């Protein structure tokens, strides 16, 4: 039984593009071939989760049935009633599988069936979002077929970008006119090749050629500077890893967006020149955007709304600081339950809180603080370095270096 990991080699792209051809011809002639698309999705899920990954396939099927049942149940309930306790329990039940998966590595001796599979967190983002919107009443009804299409939308299933239900269904139910579709395809081809450049050339240079060398060099200096392991090689590792992380992930995201565009679905972009951000706040509007926007809309804003509505925290500045802390801590835990992911979250919370202090100060003293292309350059440089340092924490390399 064969198994192909998404976007991993030229064969995969050849098979994928060949399978896309009927969908593209259909859209070109103004039709969406929904049955074919369903079959297409199914076959690629089998390719990804079949073969020696079959246990992941089983986990995916069980997980999907569970989530669809949960969401459809809540939708049915929400038509007539709206109790907060039911809503909260539904959300908790929806994130339960992900929580179990995240905690499993803490119990290495437990050899029971692993319920995890590639992309479980991205599916959880989607289900939680739909449940919350059902609660708010912005989604009134869902059909299980459309919900499945949304959840299992093949190009983005393994690692995002995270789309929104209403946005997705609008595209899915709509067939673009030929001119618009050709513009989409044009964009898709561009993204595809940009993705090749990012993932297979730049990502390869940084990740495969440079990273092992700087990693080894930095590890050989683990006793440098009084046993802290801080060396020039560690600095090199920080930059090389950051570049690798960006090009690999941005390349992957470009593939997912590109394939979506071929299918007439405008999956949102994930990156917008993140290293050109002037400050941390702006960075999070440019880096892994669909994730940070999801956190903004479903953690940060809801948390603030809830706390402020109950007047638990009056001071606006304190409120935002608390919300940032909660937001980034949750993000840290989501990445995994290790000290370095959690420190990464705390680091970004601290950075964005300090950043806010500075922005307020700047606003107050706008006439005394110079603003020109040099200060902008300085801001970009400082932000870039702070971000790279946070990625050094994120990489887990310090864990290897110190423990």
């Amino acid at each position, binding site marked *: 039984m064969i198994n192909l990991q998404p976007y991993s080699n030229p064969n995969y792209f050849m098979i994928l593009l060949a399978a896309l051809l009927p969908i593209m011809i259909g859209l070109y002639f103004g039709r969406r071939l929904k049955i074919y698309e369903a079959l297409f999705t199914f076959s690629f899920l089998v390719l990804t989760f079949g073969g020696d990954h079959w246990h992941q396939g089983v986990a995916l099927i069980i997980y999907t049935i569970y989530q669809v049942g949960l969401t459809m149940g809540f939708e049915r309930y929400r038509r007539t009633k709206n109790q907060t306790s039911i809503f909260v329990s539904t959300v908790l039940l929806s994130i339960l599988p992900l929580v179990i998966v995240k905690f499993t590595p803490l119990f290495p001796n437990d050899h029971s069936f692993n319920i995890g599979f590639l992309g479980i967190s991205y599916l959880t983002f989607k289900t939680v979002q739909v449940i*919350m*919107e059902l609660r*708010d*009443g*912005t*989604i009134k009804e869902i059909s299980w077929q459309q919900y499945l299409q949304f959840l299992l939308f093949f190009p983005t299933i393994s690692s995002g970008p995270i789309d929104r239900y209403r946005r997705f269904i609008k595209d899915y139910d709509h067939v673009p006119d030929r001119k618009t579709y050709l513009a989409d395809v044009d964009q898709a081809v561009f993204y595809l090749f940009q993705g090749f450049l990012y993932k297979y050339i730049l990502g390869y240079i940084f990740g495969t050629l440079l990273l092992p060398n700087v990693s080894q060099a930095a590890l050989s200096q683990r006793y440098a500077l009084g046993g802290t392991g801080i060396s020039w090689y560690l600095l090199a590792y920080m930059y090389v890893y950051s570049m690798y992380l960006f090009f690999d992930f941005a390349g992957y995201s470009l593939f997912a967006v590109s394939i979506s565009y071929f299918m007439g679905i405008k999956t949102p972009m994930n990156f917008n020149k993140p290293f050109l951000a002037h400050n941390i*706040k702006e960075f999070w509007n440019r880096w892994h955007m669909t994730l940070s926007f999801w956190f*903004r*809309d479903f953690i*940060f*804003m*809801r948390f*603030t*709304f809830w706390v*402020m*509505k109950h007047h638990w925290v009056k001071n*606006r500045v304190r*409120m*935002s600081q608390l*919300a940032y802390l909660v937001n980034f801590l949750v993000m840290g835990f989501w990445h995994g339950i290790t000290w370095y992911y959690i420190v990464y979250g705390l680091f970004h919370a601290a950075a964005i809180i300090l950043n806010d202090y500075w922005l307020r100060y700047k*606003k107050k003293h706008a006439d005394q603080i110079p603003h020109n292309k040099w200060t902008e350059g300085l801001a970009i440089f400082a932000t870039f370095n702070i971000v790279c340092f946070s990625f050094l924490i994120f990489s887990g390399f310090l864990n290897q270096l110190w423990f």
Partner: protein
Amino acid sequence: MNDTEKIYSILNDLTGEDLTDKGDTNLFDTGLLDSMATVQLLLEIETEIGVEVPVSEFERSEWETPNKIIAKVGSLK
């Protein structure tokens, strides 16, 4: 005070700028509103005007200028 005046008064409060004549200013691109201030905006609209806006309803592109906010609130009333 009518709703439009109320909305301008809330916005001027939140941003610390007089936006009364600048109905087409993009509040997000200019950094005048952030997520925090947005939540306050929604809460104030709820208490001052009595229109409940769920967070999910908040689609940035539909709320990015004072004029769009006025239109949106009008449609939800």
